[in-house]
């Protein structure tokens, strides 16, 4: 029987079949944050249940905390942070809180701590848990009721998904990053195109990415609807497993954690690496993107009245006119951060563009390193000095910050942000805020130019 990597992972974690057609799958490792877990813990209390296996969970503060200091910025966020710490103390769960040298964005912290390894099944109350597919691990986001379920049973009720392979072969051009690759996939497959699918990324353009790039790709797979994203294990993966706090503690042997050569996928998508350019989003869905050298669409590009209406709505929200060139879009703010693009590799890419340059007059530019460890490493490498010399504000604490504006980093109504994040939804970065997604290097280029700009002109 030839199996896909996804099927091998599900098979290895199946506990039993359930009478209604679902199965129980075993969760090796579960991560929690302060905003999707409180009601799960209170659910345990209501039912008088205990945590099945406390050592298999990690709680990290990242969504609501301020990144200007290690003190909560208001009483409401303090309540959430304290609540998580109290719950972890009560149930004997590892807690990496504010001020802890291991704290940071959960999906940056976990690989940094060596807590992900091929063959593992990881759940977390956060949609970007698909990130761990970069390691050949099955990671997926869950809701709060499911967080309670994992805490109490170490399992989830699960229904096997269909499989899709996205093959990206060929070399990508200079200036094209992992972010552009996944933004291209979202554009081609569509924002809901992979609903019901587990997606495996393959091909030479994927294999040639480093782990940070692979994580960026798998992270944003949820923006095409994929509930799981996977990349086969190779020597790049193996090399990344060494040298972390938990390295050597876990291994999931027994499978090779790659799809068998003749495994059949339910759907195949092929994209030529050479077709990918640096992209920016112009609209309010991550699939609404164009190359930086192109123009915002015009109504006549679309046939159906529904599509024309959607274009109109997006343009109106974004304050753009149809057909205007991408590079004519002036920005107010530049933000580098998030679980998609705040790793040391991302900061290096942006710093390359910023070295010897200055942020344009009137632009607010912020960089929030993904974790305390990332920040310290970046400072030691001299990256902080480059960002600050260029006029970026270097945040001393780690967190999601302006990616979803749950802390005090909230963009104003109409404020236009060049952002290295993952979602350009209406109101995502603040009520009425206008988000343009792009790679960290492209954010740096936009900050310097004062408008969206082609990173290839900044060498």
């Amino acid at each position: 029987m030839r199996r896909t990597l996804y099927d091998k992972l599900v098979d290895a974690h199946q506990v039993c079949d359930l009478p209604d057609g679902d199965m129980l799958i075993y969760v090796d490792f579960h991560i929690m944050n302060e905003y999707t877990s409180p009601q799960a813990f209170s659910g345990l209390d209501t039912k008088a249940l205990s945590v099945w296996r406390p050592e298999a969970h990690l709680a990290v503060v990242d969504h609501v905390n301020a990144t200007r200091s290690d003190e909560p910025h208001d009483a409401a966020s303090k309540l959430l942070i304290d609540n998580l710490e109290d719950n972890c103390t009560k149930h004997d769960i590892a807690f990496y809180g504010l001020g802890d040298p291991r704290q940071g964005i959960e999906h940056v912290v976990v690989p940094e701590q060596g807590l992900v390894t091929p063959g593992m099944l990881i759940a977390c109350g956060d949609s970007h848990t698909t990130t761990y597919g970069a390691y050949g691990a099955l990671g997926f986001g869950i809701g709060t009721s499911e967080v309670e379920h994992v805490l109490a049973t170490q399992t989830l009720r699960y229904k096997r998904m269909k499989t899709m392979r996205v093959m990206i072969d060929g070399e990508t051009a200079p200036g094209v990053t992992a972010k552009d690759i996944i933004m291209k996939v979202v554009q081609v497959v569509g924002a809901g195109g992979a609903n019901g699918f587990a997606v495996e990324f393959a091909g030479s353009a994927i294999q040639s990415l480093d782990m940070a790039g692979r994580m960026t790709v798998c992270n944003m797979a949820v923006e095409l609807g994929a509930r799981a994203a996977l990349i086969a294990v190779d020597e790049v993966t193996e090399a990344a497993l060494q040298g972390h706090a938990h390295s050597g503690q876990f291994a999931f042997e027994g499978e090779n954690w790659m799809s068998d050569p003749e495994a059949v996928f339910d759907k195949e998508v092929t994209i030529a690496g050479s077709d990918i350019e640096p992209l920016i989003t112009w609209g309010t869905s991550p699939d609404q993107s164009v190359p930086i050298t192109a123009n915002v669409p015009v109504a006549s590009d679309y046939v159906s009245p529904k599509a024309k209406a959607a274009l109109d709505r997006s343009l109106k929200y974004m304050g753009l006119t149809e057909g205007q060139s991408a590079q004519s879009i002036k920005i107010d703010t530049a933000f580098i951060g998030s679980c998609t693009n705040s790793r040391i590799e991302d900061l290096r890419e942006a710093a390359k563009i910023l070295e010897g340059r200055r942020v344009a007059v009137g632009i607010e530019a912020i960089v929030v390193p993904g974790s305390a460890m990332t920040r310290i490493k970046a400072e030691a490498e001299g990256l902080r000095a480059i960002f600050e010399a260029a006029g970026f504000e270097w945040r001393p604490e780690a967190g999601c910050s302006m990616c979803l504006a749950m802390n005090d980093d909230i963009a104003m109504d109409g404020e236009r942000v060049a952002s290295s994040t993952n979602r350009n939804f209406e109101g995502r970065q603040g009520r009425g805020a206008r988000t343009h997604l792009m790679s960290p290097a492209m954010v740096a280029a936009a900050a310097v130019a004062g408008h969206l700009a082609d990173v290839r002109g900044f060498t």
Partner: protein
Amino acid sequence: MKDQKMIKTIKGVAAPLPLANVDTDVIMPKRFLITITREGLADGTFADLRFDNAGGPRPEFILNKTPWTKANILVVGDNFGCGSSREHAVWGMRQLGIDACIGTSFAGIFYDNARKNGLALPIISPETRDLLLQAAGNGTEITIDLNGRRLTTGNISAPFEMDDATQTALIQGRNDTLDTLEHADAIRDYEAGLNSEMRVSVNK
């Protein structure tokens, strides 16, 4: 929940919400998420669509217009519920009185969250959806028969898709956590088969 009453049919006024890719940030904006309870989320639901910056109702939004102010069903665009995993979106919709959301496709996490909270998500073809959008726009009531997996309104009668486990959960009501603990022996057996390197233990 086990004490929830059995629901086999959902009937009521349906509001058309044809936008594609309505995400959970739009369903429940982040300023309503700073909470440790499940309660008090009705006002936050679709807040930026329902209310203007001053907090007044936007008269042009469908749920602010008669008869849809009393809608308990939504007919929605493709890929509804995409984005963030926040279950607050579903809690809020339930607290606003929404019992069902009919559409062509839903994001996976949203779909699972809905099932946990008794929100029915019948899946239909794009053609049926367009007919239902029209019917809903006329204020016609829709009836959803969960047992027979069939929708009716006026002279439209169409089947819908819903997986067996979700159908059972909606009709019988269920407490997944407690039900799963009935399989505790199977979980222990599985764990007994794991070697020590497969037992994650996080450094404190």
